[in-house]
C-alpha cells in the first residue's frame, strides 16, 4: 500500500501578494497559477504507482440485468480490479434529496450511461479495452420517455417503488377561476441543456494506512459528496477525507456524485492510488442536465394591461433518478408568476421519473423554465393589448413589500421596473451597418450565407426573479476558520473553509472580507477540505452570502479576542477599538499598537458558522409558506438580433443586462459572472440542446452539442445597481444565476420581434424560423 496520502501535485495555499477589500476588485489569488499552467486541476493529479479507473455504462435506457461476468476483463494483463454492485462495501444507494441512485447498477439500469462496473488498470487504454471484455446480459425493456404521461398514466411500470411522480406541488391564491378581458395562452417547451463545464469529471483516490481513503476531486460541495461517499464505502466519516482540487467549471453539474465512490472503491480494493478522468463523451452521461420542461401557460389581463390571473401546468423531466427534481418543482412553482403582481394564481408543477438522462442542478435551477414561459407570455400579451412590452412589464412589476402567490412578502428591495427602465434607456446598436458589411457580423458569419438580404432585426426584453440560497426549510449554513498571526513581522490571516472555488471567485471574496474585517493585507486561503465544517454548495448564488457571512463572523470573533487582549493591556474599552492598516486604533486615543506586537507569538484562531434566515416548506395543497426563500434576486436583459429569415440563422448583435446585486463585493467579478451567465442563457435560446430520442442521447460531443463561441457572443453592456438587502452580510444579493435566466427569453423575444413568429420551443432552430 502506498504511504503517500497526497498526490504529487497538490492543492495549495493561495497567498499571492494581492491587496483589496470589500468593494475593490483585487486580482484572483489563483490567477498566476492558472495562466502558467501550474494550477492543479483534479485531472492533473498524479501519484506514484497510480492506476487508471474506467466505468462500464449501460447502453440501454431501461433494462433488467440478468448477469454480469467480469472474468474476461480480469484476465487482461495490466488489469488490477473489475468491480460490480456486489463490491460496494456500504449502502449501494445515494442521492442529494432522495436516496434512489445506486453507486453501481443492481437489478436494473434506468438510463443510458448508468454505471454498471468498474475497472482499474495501469494505462487508461488498457482499462478501456478491459471494460469491453465485461459481459453483461441485459433483458431490454420499453423505456418511459414521456414525462407528461409519467405524471398521469398509472398503467406505466413504476421505475421506483414510490411511483413515477417525484414531486407534485400546486400553488394557489385568490380566485383561480377569475375572468379577464384579454387572455393569452400557449404551450412552451424547453430543451435539455448541458452545463458543459470544460474540465470533465475527475479525481484521484489514495488509500490510507488507517484503512480509509483520501480523495482529491473537483466538486461544488465537498461535504455532500463526502457524506454520500462514506455511506457507500461503509466507512466512518473520519476515514474518508476529501480535498478540493482545481475545478474546471461546474454550473450545477458537480452537485451530484460522479466518480467519487467509484475511485474510492477501486483504491481501497487495489491498495493503489486510482485516478478517474472522464472524457467529453462520458461526461455527457456522467452528470445530470437541466430539466427539459413542457409548460402550459394562460394569462388573463384587463384592457389596460393589469394582470388578473395566471394558470400554469409545468412538467419537468427528471429522468431516471431524482437528484434535484424536488427543488426544481419547488422553485418553478414558487417563482412561476415571474416578478409580477398577479392576484389570482393557480400553478401546478410535476417532477417525474422517466428513463431519459437524469436531470438536476444547473445555473438558474427551476427558474429558467418558467421564466422563459412567462416572459414569452408577457410579449404575447403586450401584442394582444397593443402595448409596449416594457411598459406592460413595468405596470405589473413586483415591488418591495409585495406578497407573492406563496404568501411570502418580498422583504427587501425589488427594483424590477427600474431595471427595465435602465435597460430601455441604454443606447441601441446602430441599425445601419457599414457597407459592405463584414460577414463576420452577420447571421451565418464566415460561412458567408448572407450579405444582408433576407435579414431582419429585432429587439426583445425580459426580467426575471430567482431565489438565492437553499429553500423550503433547508439550513444550508457555512463554516469558516480564521487564524490571525504574525509571520515574518507582518500580520497574516489564514482563512479555511470548504467553499468550492469553481471559478466564480469565492476565494477572492473570502480574502477581501478578511482584509476588510481584520485590517490586514496578507490573507492566505487554505485549500478547501473536509477538515473544516460544511460550507454548503457553490450553487443557488449563495457562496458570497453564506460563506462570506461565515468568514465575516469568524473575523469578528478573532477581532473580539484581540480587542479584549488590547483592552486589558492598554486600559481601553473594546468598543472603542478598530483595526486598520495592520494597527490597532482607539477612537479615543488614536493608534495604540502594531497588530504584530499585540499578537506576538500567539495566534488567534476562531471558527464560526453563518446561518441564513429560517425558511419553511410549501404546504402540499396550496403551496403557501411564510417564507419559502431566503432572498430574491432580479435581472433584466435586452437582446438585439439579426435573423436571416431564408436560412433561419440568428446573430445576436447585442445583449445588455441590468441587475441588482445588493452590494458588489468584487465589482469586476460581478460583471464577469453576469457576462458568463448571459452567454449560457444565449446558448439555451439559439443552440444548446441535448437531443434525446427513445431515451438515448444523440449528440454527446462538442461537435454536436454546441455552446457559444466568441463569434456567437455579442458585446454585452452590464449595468449593476446596488440596493442593499438588510438581512444579508454587507447587503449582498446573489449574482451568478439571474443573468442566465433572463438572457434566454430576451433573445427569444428579440427573434419573435424580428420574425413575427410565436416560437414555442427553446432553443430556436433554423427550421423553426424558415419552416422547413
Amino acid at each position, binding site marked *: 500500500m502506498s504511504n503517500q496520502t497526497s498526490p504529487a501535485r497538490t492543492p495549495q495555499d493561495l*497567498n499571492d501578494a494581492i491587496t483589496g477589500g470589500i468593494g475593490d476588485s483585487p486580482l484572483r489569488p489563483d490567477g498566476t497559477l492558472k495562466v*502558467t499552467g501550474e494550477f492543479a486541476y483534479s485531472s492533473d493529479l498524479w501519484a506514484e504507482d497510480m492506476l487508471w479507473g474506467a466505468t462500464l455504462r449501460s447502453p440501454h435506457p431501461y433494462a433488467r440485468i440478468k448477469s454480469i461476468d467480469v472474468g474476461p476483463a480480469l484476465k487482461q494483463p495490466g488489469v488490477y480490479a473489475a468491480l460490480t454492485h456486489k463490491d460496494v462495501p456500504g449502502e449501494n444507494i445515494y442521492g442529494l434529496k432522495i436516496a434512489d441512485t445506486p453507486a453501481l447498477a443492481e437489478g436494473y439500469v434506468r438510463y443510458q450511461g448508468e454505471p454498471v462496473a468498474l475497472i482499474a488498470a495501469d494505462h487508461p*487504454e488498457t482499462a478501456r479495452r478491459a471494460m469491453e471484455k465485461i459481459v453483461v446480459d441485459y433483458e431490454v425493456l420499453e423505456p418511459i420517455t414521456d414525462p407528461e404521461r409519467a405524471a398521469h398514466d398509472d398503467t406505466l411500470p413504476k421505475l421506483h417503488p414510490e411511483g413515477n411522480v417525484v414531486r407534485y406541488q400546486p400553488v394557489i391564491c385568490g380566485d383561480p377561476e377569475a375572468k379577464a378581458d384579454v387572455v393569452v395562452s400557449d404551450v412552451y417547451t424547453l430543451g435539455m441543456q448541458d452545463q458543459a*463545464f*470544460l474540465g470533465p469529471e475527475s479525481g484521484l483516490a489514495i488509500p490510507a494506512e488507517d484503512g480509509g481513503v483520501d480523495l482529491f476531486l473537483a466538486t461544488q460541495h465537498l461535504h455532500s459528496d463526502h457524506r454520500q461517499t462514506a455511506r457507500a464505502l461503509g466507512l466512518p466519516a473520519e476515514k474518508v477525507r476529501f480535498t478540493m482540487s*482545481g475545478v474546471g467549471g461546474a454550473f450545477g453539474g458537480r452537485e451530484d456524485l460522479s466518480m467519487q465512490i467509484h475511485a474510492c472503491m477501486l483504491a481501497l480494493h487495489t491498495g493503489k492510488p486510482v485516478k478517474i478522468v472522464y472524457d467529453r463523451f462520458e461526461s455527457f452521461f456522467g452528470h445530470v442536465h437541466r430539466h427539459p420542461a413542457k409548460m402550459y401557460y394562460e394569462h388573463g389581463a384587463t384592457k389596460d394591461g393589469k394582470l388578473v390571473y395566471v394558470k400554469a401546468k409545468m412538467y419537468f423531466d427528471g429522468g431516471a433518478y431524482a437528484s434535484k427534481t424536488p427543488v426544481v418543482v419547488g422553485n418553478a412553482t414558487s417563482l412561476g408568476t415571474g416578478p409580477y403582481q398577479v392576484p389570482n394564481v393557480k400553478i401546478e408543477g410535476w417532477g417525474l421519473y422517466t428513463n431519459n438522462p437524469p436531470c438536476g442542478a444547473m445555473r438558474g435551477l427551476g427558474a429558467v423554465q418558467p421564466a422563459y414561459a412567462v416572459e414569452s407570455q408577457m410579449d404575447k400579451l403586450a401584442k394582444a393589448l397593443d402595448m409596449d412590452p416594457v411598459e406592460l412589464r413595468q405596470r405589473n412589476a413586483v415591488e418591495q413589500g409585495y406578497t407573492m402567490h406563496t404568501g411570502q412578502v418580498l422583504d427587501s428591495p425589488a427594483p424590477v421596473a427600474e431595471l427595465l427602465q435602465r435597460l430601455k434607456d441604454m443606447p441601441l446598436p446602430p441599425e445601419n451597418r457599414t457597407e459592405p458589411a463584414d460577414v463576420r457580423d452577420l447571421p451565418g458569419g464566415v460561412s458567408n450565407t448572407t450579405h444582408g438580404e433576407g435579414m431582419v432585426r429585432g429587439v426583445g426584453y425580459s426580467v426575471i426573479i430567482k431565489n438565492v440560497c437553499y429553500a423550503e426549510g433547508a439550513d444550508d449554513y457555512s463554516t469558516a476558520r480564521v487564524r490571525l498571526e504574525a509571520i515574518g513581522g507582518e500580520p497574516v490571516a489564514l482563512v479555511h473553509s470548504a467553499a468550492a472555488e469553481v471559478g466564480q471567485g469565492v476565494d477572492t471574496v473570502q480574502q477581501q472580507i478578511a482584509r476588510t474585517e481584520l485590517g490586514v493585507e496578507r490573507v492566505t486561503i487554505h485549500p478547501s477540505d473536509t477538515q473544516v465544517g460544511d460550507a454548503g454548495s457553490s450553487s443557488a448564488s449563495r457562496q458570497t452570502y453564506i460563506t462570506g457571512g461565515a468568514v465575516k463572523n469568524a473575523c469578528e470573533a478573532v477581532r473580539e479576542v484581540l480587542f479584549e487582549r488590547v483592552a486589558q493591556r492598554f486600559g481601553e474599552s473594546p468598543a472603542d477599538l478598530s483595526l486598520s492598516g495592520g494597527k490597532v486604533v482607539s477612537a479615543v486615543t488614536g493608534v495604540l499598537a502594531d497588530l504584530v506586537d499585540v499578537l506576538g507569538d500567539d495566534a488567534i484562531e476562531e471558527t464560526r458558522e453563518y446561518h441564513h434566515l429560517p425558511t419553511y416548506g410549501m404546504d402540499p395543497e396550496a403551496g403557501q409558506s411564510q417564507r419559502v426563500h431566503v432572498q430574491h434576486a432580479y435581472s433584466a436583459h435586452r437582446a438585439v438580433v439579426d435573423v436571416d429569415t431564408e436560412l433561419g440563422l440568428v446573430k445576436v448583435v447585442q445583449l445588455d443586462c441590468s441587475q441588482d446585486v445588493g452590494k458588489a463585493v468584487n465589482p469586476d467579478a460581478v460583471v464577469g459572472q453576469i457576462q458568463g451567465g448571459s452567454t449560457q442563457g444565449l446558448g439555451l435560446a439559439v443552440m444548446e440542446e441535448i437531443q434525446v430520442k427513445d431515451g438515448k442521447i444523440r449528440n454527446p460531443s462538442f461537435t454536436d452539442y454546441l455552446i457559444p463561441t*466568441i463569434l456567437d457572443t455579442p458585446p454585452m453592456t452590464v449595468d449593476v445597481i446596488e440596493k442593499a438587502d438588510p438581512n444579508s452580510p454587507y447587503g449582498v444579493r446573489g449574482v451568478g444565476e439571474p443573468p442566465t435566466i433572463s438572457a434566454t427569453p430576451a433573445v427569444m423575444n428579440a427573434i419573435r420581434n424580428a420574425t413575427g413568429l410565436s416560437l414555442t420551443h427553446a432553443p430556436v432552430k433554423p427550421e423553426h424560423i424558415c419552416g422547413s
Partner: protein
Amino acid sequence: MRVNFTVNGRKQEADDVWEGESLLYVLRERMGLPGSKNACEQGECGSCTVRLDGVPVCSCLVAAGQAEGREVVTVEGLADFAKQREQAAHAGGCASGACGTSGTSGTSLDAAQQWSAKGTDSQTGEGGDLSPIQQAFIEAGAVQCGFCTPGLLVAADELLEREASPSDADIREALSGNLCRCTGYEKILDAVRLAAARQAETVEAS
C-alpha cells in the same frame, strides 16, 4: 515506440508510447506538463492548443509520433517563448517578432539550447515572469475557472505575434476555436486588447 521532440526549448524523449497516444497525452502524462488541458479530445474546444513548429494546433488531434523531431511550445513555456521572441525582435528590429531569426517558431536554435526550465514557486506562483498576454488575462479578469485559459493564451499570443493591433472581429475569428464556458468572452477580448495596446506602447517607446 520512442518519440524525440523539443518541448519549450528542451529536448525530450518519451519511451513506450502507444501508437494511439496523442501529443496531448504524452505532454500531460509522460512529460509532467499538464498545463495543456483535455476538455473534448476531438479538436472542438481548443483547451489543448500548443504551438507545433510555430503553428497553433489542438494537441489532442496530433499523434505523438507526428511530433518527432519538431518543436512544441506549451503554456508552461509561453513566458520564455514570448521573452525570447521579444529579444529576437529587438535584435532584429522586428516589432511583431514574426520575422525573427528562427522562422515561424520565433525561437532561435541558440536560444532554444540555452533554454532551461525555471522553477515557479508553487506557494506563491512567483519566480517565473509572465508573458504580456498572461499578465493581461489576469488583470482583465479573463480567467475564471481557468480550464480554457492555457489554450486561449497560446492562441491569443500567436494572434498578437502575427497581427500587432487586431480588430475585435480579428480577435473573435482567431479565438473562435477556443471554447470558454465561464466568461462570456468579453474579458478575454479586453485582455487581448490590453496586451496589444501594451505591445504597441513598447514598440513606440523603443
